[in-house]
């Protein structure tokens, strides 16, 4: 049984360049993750801020022995955004596609199919594998049982589950941060930068429910899928994806690594996780085939 790998997903939030640098330098030096995704996935308007910092970060991470994956935009609209996808798809590194827009320019070269691409069954997975998909991270609403059913039909492909972080639930043409501040998307003033983990959306009776992040809507709660390594392997899961937040992600990675090495039981790992400064309570309903907001079975 090959060891289960740890992936650090792309940062979904609008972090300033300095924060990105500090974050990834520390990941390079300290985080026990095998693969690191870099790139702007949520909003093309943010790209001019982060684009200049990626080359240094790629070099630093690769020198530290991490495999770097370049993540592409999930909802490209403008000509500039489409060109940036095409440019990234030409790179010799592994690329994560998050929209079918990237497929024509990446076909024939290895890619990761990200959680924004609708892979719901084996036939779709096999179609993408024939075009170069090497790792598939299915949509977050799929249960582990369904992911296992897909994985069984393509045994040579790595399946990755969204194991940690606020769940990416929806994307829109409209920017909700701008709307909240009485602005339009075209003149948004980048107010999403004020909320480095997204802004919690409560119900009218003050229950934390969702989180807004520009054009993206996320869960307010934090997904935390934790199983003994043998159970992950039995479900054909070969990678766990950890989605970056402002909490101590090195520590998050260490907790998951201990879990995967069998040094920590899931229950204790969850306690360790919940002791960190997380943006919300732990949920894992989707993995169990339930509503995504259902709290973890044994907190």
């Amino acid at each position, binding site marked *: 049984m090959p060891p289960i790998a740890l992936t650090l997903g792309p940062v979904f939030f609008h972090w300033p360049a300095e924060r990105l640098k500090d974050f990834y330098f520390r990941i390079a030096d300290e985080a026990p993750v095998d693969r690191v995704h870099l790139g702007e996935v949520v909003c093309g308007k943010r790209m001019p801020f982060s684009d200049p910092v990626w080359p240094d970060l790629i070099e630093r991470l690769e020198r530290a022995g991490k495999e770097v994956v370049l993540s592409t935009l999930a909802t490209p609209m403008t000509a500039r955004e489409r060109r940036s996808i095409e440019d990234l798809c030409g790179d010799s590194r592994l690329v994560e596609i998050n929209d*079918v827009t990237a497929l024509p320019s990446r076909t024939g070269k290895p890619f990761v199919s990200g959680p924004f691409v*609708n892979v719901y*069954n084996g036939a779709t997975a096999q179609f993408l594998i024939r075009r170069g998909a090497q790792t598939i991270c299915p949509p977050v609403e799929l249960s582990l049982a369904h992911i296992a059913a897909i994985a069984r039909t393509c045994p040579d492909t790595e399946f990755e589950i969204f194991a940690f972080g606020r769940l990416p*639930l929806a*994307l829109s043409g409209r920017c909700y941060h*701008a709307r909240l501040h009485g602005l339009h998307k075209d003149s948004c003033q980048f107010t999403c930068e004020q909320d480095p983990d997204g802004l919690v959306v409560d119900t009218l009776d003050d229950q934390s*429910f*969702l989180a807004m992040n520009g054009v993206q809507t996320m869960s307010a709660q934090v997904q935390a899928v934790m199983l003994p390594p043998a159970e992950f392997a039995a479900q054909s899961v070969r990678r766990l994806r950890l989605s970056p937040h402002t909490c101590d992600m090195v520590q998050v990675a260490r907790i998951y690594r201990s879990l995967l090495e069998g040094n920590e039981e899931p229950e204790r790992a969850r306690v360790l996780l919940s002791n960190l400064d997380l943006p919300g309570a732990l949920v894992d309903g989707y993995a169990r085939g339930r509503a995504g907001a259902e709290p973890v079975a044994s907190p």
Partner: protein
Amino acid sequence: MELVCPAGTPATLRAAVQAGADAVYCGFRDETNARNFPGLNFSPQEMAEGIRFAHDHGSKVLVAINTFARADNIDPWRKAADTAAASGADAIIAADIAVLDHMATNHPGTRLHLSVQAAAATPEAIGFYADSFGVRRVVLPRVLSVQEIAALNRAITVETEAFVFGGLCVMVEGRCHLSSYATGKSPNLNGVCSPPEAVNYVEDGAGTMAQLAGFTIDRYEAGKSTGYPTLCKGRFKAGGKTGYLFEDPVSLNAGSMIVAFREAGVTALKIEGRQRGKGYVTEVVRAFRKAVDAVEQGGTPTEIDSILASMSEGGRQTTGAYRKTWR
């Protein structure tokens, strides 16, 4: 321009055809289509009869098989596609690569339309579906402005279909998991959004709370009429503000933009509402039939507006993302 109208039942199909639909769209009575509600949709026999009726009256039938095939059993989707093709459907509307691939391989003679659930909004994405499966028409996501649609049409070789009336999804369709996050049931997997079995109205001293799977989606004062708790159109609190943070409880009416759609190169206009009754469908289809005919004959926007005026009363309406200011 082709007027594409909803048919949730055989009776609505006949009503839409008689009211002047160029095409109706409908689905089978199961999870293979995105309006999987009790009491709606067609058995294979009803589908075959509906297609015969429509063809006898000069209308087309487009069969929606537009949810994503289930990982542990893809057969119902393949069977639905086979049945639709055998019944003489004029096109299959699909979103899942598995369904599109099955159609292209096994029924190359049947026209394929790309469902809005596939969320294809760029020339590259649309080109991929056209090249890979021979898709002939794309139903556009409701997040593009008319200017963007015009630019898109200049860059692609397939037809486009735009929603003109009915529901308004504010999230990119086919990539929204809000419903399954709260209720466990989703558009992509189950063909439902904010499903009725998860809805609960709770009375307290001050009024009524509309809840979805225990989450309060909106609150109404005593005596006020309550709305349906569709997740993205609820009232929430964030950043010290309370209100409809994603979208107001409005529906889409882009009737005032028919001329603009035509100028943007849109081939077909789609009316949403497969869950609606015969009377509603008749009224809406008739009005849009007149408006589209007026546009085709060079009518003015004022004339079109007056034809559609009766439909703007009552419920709140918007032209959504078609006007850029919506964002």
